[in-house]
């Protein structure tokens, strides 16, 4: 699929643009090249960070990219979307020294982006496998792409089924544009497709097709992510002017007909990273006012501190200890306010209701789980939270042929966690296939 029209996300620019050669070299030279490096341990895909950084410093950018991709095939999107502040860079020894940690994300972007740019020689060529197996993925997000890419490079047949018209999962539909634009996510999808991965969009898997997949393929990987945005369940919620956060982000990134939030008063309900993303995106689009409405105190928020700090710089306010009660609409049905009650320990205090005037409300209080899909695969179980049960080290579910990873098993973590899951499942299967062959 190609991206059409002047989509809203094109108004938002990279916060951390691609380094120039000399910027990358200068930053790479700062790296101490630690032994038993804490940054590697903090990376869910255990990229050998000091090694790739030294390669950038020596001018071996291609080698640096290979060091990254060998552990993480989606190293380019991870470079741009990883919360390095709480992962690799957060554990950089420079922090202890009260110095600026190495900009690992930006260096990784430099290596991966320059080495996979159009016109560059391929970094990988898929192996010829004497006894190729067939694997299918449900969902074309980071977990599936990491899985399918690794399988394809081993010479297996990898088919990815995506219900949307566009592949890439949240990388394409959900990442804040100032980190990653949809076209860059699709460029990465194309790069993985180049290994021989077949991606079929517009393919929703139901009970029948699940049965067929199990019959036709040697293994199936479920990288289905999460479902629709959760609703508050309060009066007035349904109708124009109240949007689900991930649905709105997807429209902002992909649908050129989405109206801008410029000059609007926006309330974002929630305290997680998706809530912060929406708030920042609205603020950057020129909203008149953006406030996050959260039921508890700031320190209870699951969103990252560094993201909230960034949001504040962009003018986002936080209205804490506030619990939505109803959406107030005028006689024409237009949203005029969100009625909230004061919260104490997350509980509404009776009689404390008041209105927060607004034009648009975005709900970022979580996403539903895709219970139904799992049921189509016999043996695959769900945990108490509705996530697919799978061993994160191997991706193995209750069905020997079925693997799973990403948000579908962890309830919603980072892209890098999804990539780790997909990679681990691929390594498990490759070892199994090799042993049998």
């Amino acid at each position: 699929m190609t991206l059409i029209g002047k989509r809203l996300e094109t108004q938002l620019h990279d916060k951390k643009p691609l380094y120039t050669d000399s910027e990358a070299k200068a930053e790479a030279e700062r790296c101490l090249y630690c032994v038993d490096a804490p940054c590697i341990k903090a990376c869910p895909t255990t990229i050998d960070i000091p090694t790739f950084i030294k390669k950038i410093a020596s001018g071996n950018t291609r080698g640096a990219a290979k060091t990254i991709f060998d552990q993480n095939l989606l190293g380019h999107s991870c470079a741009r979307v990883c919360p390095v502040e709480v992962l690799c860079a957060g554990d950089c020894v420079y922090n202890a020294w009260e110095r600026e940690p190495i900009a690992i994300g930006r260096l990784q972007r430099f290596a991966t982006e320059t080495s996979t740019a159009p016109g560059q020689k391929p970094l990988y060529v898929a192996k010829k496998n004497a006894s190729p197996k067939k694997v299918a993925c449900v969902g074309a997000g980071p977990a599936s792409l990491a899985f399918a890419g690794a399988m394809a490079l081993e010479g297996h047949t990898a088919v990815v089924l995506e219900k949307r018209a566009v592949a890439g999962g949240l990388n394409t539909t959900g990442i804040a544009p100032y980190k990653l634009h949809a076209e860059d996510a699709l460029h990465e999808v194309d790069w993985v497709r180049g290994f021989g991965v077949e991606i079929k969009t517009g393919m929703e898997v139901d009970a029948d097709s699940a049965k067929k997949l199990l019959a036709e393929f040697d293994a199936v990987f479920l990288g289905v992510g999460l479902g629709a945005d959760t609703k508050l369940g309060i009066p007035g919620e349904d109708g124009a002017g109240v949007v689900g956060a991930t649905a709105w982000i997807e429209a902002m990134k992909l649908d050129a007909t989405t109206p801008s939030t410029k000059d609007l008063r926006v309330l974002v309900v929630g305290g997680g990273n998706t809530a912060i993303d929406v708030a920042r995106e609205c603020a950057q689009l020129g909203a008149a006012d953006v406030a996050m409405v959260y039921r508890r105190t700031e320190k209870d928020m699951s969103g990252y501190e560094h993201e909230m700090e960034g949001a504040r710089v962009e003018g986002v306010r936080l209205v804490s200890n506030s619990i939505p009660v109803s959406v107030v609409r005028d006689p024409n049905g237009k949203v005029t306010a969100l009625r909230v009650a004061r919260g104490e320990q997350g509980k509404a205090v009776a009689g404390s209701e008041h209105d927060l005037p607004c034009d648009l409300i975005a709900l970022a209080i979580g996403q539903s789980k895709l219970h139904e899909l799992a049921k189509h695969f016999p043996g695959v179980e769900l945990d108490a939270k509705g996530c697919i049960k799978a061993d994160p080290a191997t991706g193995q579910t209750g069905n020997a042929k079925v693997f799973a990873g990403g948000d579908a098993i962890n309830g919603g973590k980072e892209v890098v966690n999804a990539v780790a899951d997909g990679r681990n499942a691929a390594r498990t299967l490759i070892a199994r296939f090799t042993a049998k062959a």
Partner: protein
Amino acid sequence: MADLSIDFAGIKSPNPFWLASAPPANTGEQVMRAFDAGWGGAVWKTLGDPIVNVSSRFGGVDLGTYKMMGFNNIELITDRSLETNLREIREVKKRYPKHAVIASLMTETKEDWRVLIQKCEDAGVDGLELNFGCPHGMCERGMGSSVGQEPKLLTEITSWTKEFAKTPVLVKLTPNTGDIVEAGQAAVHGGGDGISLINTIKSIIGVDLDRLVPLPRVGNASSNGGYCGPAVKPIALHLLAALARDEVAGRVPISGIGGIGNWKDAAEFIALGSTSVQVCTAVMHYGFRIVEDMIDGLSNYLDSRGMKSVNELRGRAIPGYQEWGDLDLSYKLLAKIDPKKCIGCQLCVTACNDGAHQCIFTGNEEKSRPPHAHTAGKAKPPSPFPIGLHAGNRVPWVDEPECVGCNLCALVCPVEGCITMEETPSGLPKETWNERVAAGRGKIPGGIHD
């Protein structure tokens, strides 16, 4: 403020900082600006029959983001007419009578030397420096380092110049020689009043890996050049000290050259026997203005040491420069890691393990020593186990019985003062190798014939 003025074999200078004979001292206009900036003297770009230069001429070696850690050039002596240079020298001396202006000279026949020296002295120079060091271009024509590498020739030409010179003669030596003391003595035997060293080191600065041509590139070729800059300082310090402590060569004052970029470098050269110091690369990199900190820093250092004059510093480190055989074999250092300062990078661990003596470990458990260890049993972690202020349980520890006090860990540690080398009584009386040999204990078991 300490007195920085010097008297170099009769050449007076308000401070020991001179521009070396090189591009920064190419013209009168530059030299006068340098004097305005604070330089005490200048050795003029080498005079002789003008030459023709090539393009390009310079090459650099960067270390990380530090530019020009090393530098080389294939530029020759002055390409301007002698008359022009002399006119400018005359003007400089007229306007800056208290500053030292020394003419660097290079020519061939005795008659040429006579004429050149007379003309320079008529122009008012305070001294002469014989360029017997240039390792590129001119040496192919029988001049520069080709003289400095032949002690007899060096003595002979020096003695010619002394026949004609009324001002002091400094002999500039090349480091491209087997024995610098031989060259230094030859200069003194020829009557030289002083020695300058080092001239640049014969070098190829690098290779253009796209064109596969050495650097600096002149079309599709290059030539060996003269290496200088911060990288050559240790070589220069050694050659300086070797001369300064020599009975013959050490009789004359020495002008130290080689990688000097700040007052500390200068102080080290002076402590090893330099009377003046000459600077080129640092000026080519940062400009004449660097001398302000050189003067200020040296002066502050002398004040802090209670020295009233720079002359009190001169040569103070020479007695500490000994033969290896005279070092105390019983002296013992141990590495100490400060858990308060450690940031947990563990560079010391791998440096010691791969590059030294396998005696730095991590983790609070006993560690197996390598099979070649000198101490029996396992290495025991310190008790209580050090928990770092920043690095937590990543702070490494030293297996002291195995530590030879080599310094490597302290050298690789990025944190100032985190790893210190502490003196530890070895329990042995002071003994040098030479003493052992004299006492008949110079044979160590396990040799070639054992």
